[in-house]
């Protein structure tokens, strides 16, 4: 359509974590401006942790994000453990895996059911769905509560886990609790199947848009990587060690954003559930693969809107892995372990694939265990440039839509990435000059 003037200045878009703006200015076919802006107030975490004791680091950095506080806790503790030369036990690793999967389930259910479903059902929030789709809302709440209760049982608190410590736990769950967790997750598989069927019934509402990009995630020969692994890019054959993460992230400051942006082999890359699915799909469980097939998700998938679908698939995987790890404790028992270690000088990097993608914490400690340098690279930072690139490709394709519809489609694009903007601006790096 010629002569049409489009002006979208959508400040602080809703149903995302943190503050982001969408700006589109278009005169006829001339696209003057397409911008994904991050005006969120930065918090300067890397500066806050300097001079603090190793024992406080994960307590402080957990507070970067309410939704992925567990992922931050583990990336932080892994970085400290790498710096101090600590190898954790199998018990500690498996408990962390359970907690990490619980966070993955909690975060994905929150995103898919509370933030994305309203778009697919044409309402402004989940609240009207309490009347119109009560069974689905109750199902979502059941799954969300299960994930949160698992966080309580293992971590001591739903958000900002208390029990998780460097080299172990301040308190261990009872074996009976692990039995409950296993049984509850077995029951949850039925709810997840129902949820997948409901999402499948709405899948045609996801915009049909594709843009190939570079997909970055962790990868692990043992399993579909979340808690641990090395870095994999869809553009690079060889895996990259977490300690070399800066080769991948290449952070830079952009005027559109208080959050830093990243680039690797192209102008932008994507992290998150879809990137993990594209890179590691073969390692998913049979059940998760079947749900992916049912939802029409096959790799490689270049439609960013399908990230929400990949999250549904991962929910099934996380529930199944939780059953497996809980069973291990029922078979092997739980015992008190020594958390002691010798504090030493050094640098360590911790990488975890958290709900929104790959998270890096990088600390340098002096001989007394005080942090002297910190660098944190957050999944949403790594997605900002990709969101921008998607918008630039998408806007010309939808220019004939009404402004309202175009705005909604762009909001849906941003929401698909499940951005955690608080995270991305709270984490900017510190380099001692």
């Amino acid at each position, binding site marked *: 359509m010629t002569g049409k003037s489009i002006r979208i200045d959508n400040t*602080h878009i809703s*149903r995302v974590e943190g503050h982001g703006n969408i700006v589109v200015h278009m005169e006829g076919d001339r696209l003057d401006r397409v911008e994904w802006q991050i005006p969120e107030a930065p918090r*300067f975490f890397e500066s*806050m942790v300097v001079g603090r004791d190793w024992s406080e680091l994960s307590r*402080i950095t957990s*507070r970067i994000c*309410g939704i992925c506080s567990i992922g931050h806790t583990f990336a932080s503790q892994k970085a400290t453990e790498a710096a101090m030369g600590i190898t954790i036990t199998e018990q500690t690793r498996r408990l962390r895996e359970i907690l990490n999967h619980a966070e993955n389930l909690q975060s994905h259910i929150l995103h898919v059911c509370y933030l994305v479903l309203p778009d697919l059902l044409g309402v402004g*929030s989940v609240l009207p769905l309490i009347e119109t789709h009560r069974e689905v809302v109750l199902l979502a709440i059941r799954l969300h509560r299960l994930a949160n209760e698992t966080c309580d049982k293992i971590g*001591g608190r739903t958000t900002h886990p208390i029990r998780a410590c460097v080299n172990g736990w301040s308190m261990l769950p009872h074996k009976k609790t692990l039995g409950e967790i296993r049984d509850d997750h077995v029951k949850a598989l039925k709810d997840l199947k129902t949820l997948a069927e409901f999402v499948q019934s709405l899948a045609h509402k996801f915009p049909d848009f594709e843009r190939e990009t570079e997909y970055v995630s962790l990868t692990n020969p043992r399993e579909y990587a979340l808690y641990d692994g090395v870095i994999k890019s869809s553009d690079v054959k060889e895996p990259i060690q977490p300690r070399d993460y800066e080769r991948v992230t290449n952070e830079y400051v952009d005027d559109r954003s208080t959050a830093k942006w990243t680039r690797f082999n192209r102008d932008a890359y994507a992290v998150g559930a879809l990137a993990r699915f594209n890179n590691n799909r073969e390692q998913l469980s049979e059940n998760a693969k079947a749900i992916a097939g049912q939802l029409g998700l096959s790799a490689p998938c270049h439609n960013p809107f399908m990230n929400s679908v990949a999250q549904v698939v991962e929910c099934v995987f996380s529930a199944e892995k939780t059953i497996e790890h809980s069973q291990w404790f029922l078979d092997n028992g739980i015992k008190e372990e020594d958390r002691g270690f010798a504090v030493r000088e050094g640098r360590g990097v911790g990488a975890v694939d958290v709900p929104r993608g790959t998270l890096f914490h990088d600390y340098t400690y002096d001989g007394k265990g005080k942090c002297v340098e910190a660098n944190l690279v957050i999944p949403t930072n790594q997605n900002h440039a990709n969101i921008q690139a998607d918008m630039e490709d998408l806007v010309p394709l939808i220019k004939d839509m009404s402004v309202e519809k175009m705005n909604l489609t762009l909001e849906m694009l941003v929401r698909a990435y499940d951005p955690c903007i*608080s995270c991305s601006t709270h984490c900017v790096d510190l380099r001692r000059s």
Partner: protein
Amino acid sequence: MSTKPKVAFFDFASCEGCQLQIANLEEEIIGLVDLVDVVEFREVMTEKAPSYDIAFVEGSITRKKDEARLRDIRERSGVLVALGACAATGGLNKLKNVRGNLEQVRRDVYGSDWDRPHLETYATRAVGEIVPVDFQVHGCPINREEFLHVVEAFALGTNPEIPDYPVCAECKIKENVCLFHLGQTCLGPIVRAGCGAICPSNGVGCEGCRGIIPHANRNAMKDVLAEHNLTVEQITEKFNLFPLYPEVTP
């Protein structure tokens, strides 16, 4: 027209974990929306409203330009509640203040880009250091039960009751072994209860996220910590992880 109180949620510099605790009320959300009208909550809904009976504000103020948005919310709200540690006391965000020189903080973080205008920052302030606050919900994160109690009290037109006694009281009720007896340290004696002594109950000393109780004896607390072999530097760090010194303000 609905006579239910109109409730809104807003956030400034924070992790939004306190608003997340509202989603974490799970089934009780349904009861909550029967009691109040949630008219604005950007994190979960698209709708907006011109005025509010109760505004919950999460987060600290960390730059000049956010003050106007906060003042506007204040003007349009009957009751304004500071939600969580970042809003109530400045919380962990005030660690930036004790790092000292803000130019250095910005240089540390953004390197040679430090003075680009959109990266402005100033010393962290609690919400109450900018506008009058009617009520504070403490904690990092908030306690969901306490939040429900606050909303119910407002809906019934009464004042919520928030403890002004220390965490130790709740810890004793839980029959926990005192962490000092186990060779650890804890700020429970001077920090506001209401969390159910959640950290000590999970084997970790109180970090002070709910702020200091009225008339607390800081010096006695310092003596106890010193008797348990903490250095002056370590004691200071414990006191400023969450700001327990009122003087640590801009």
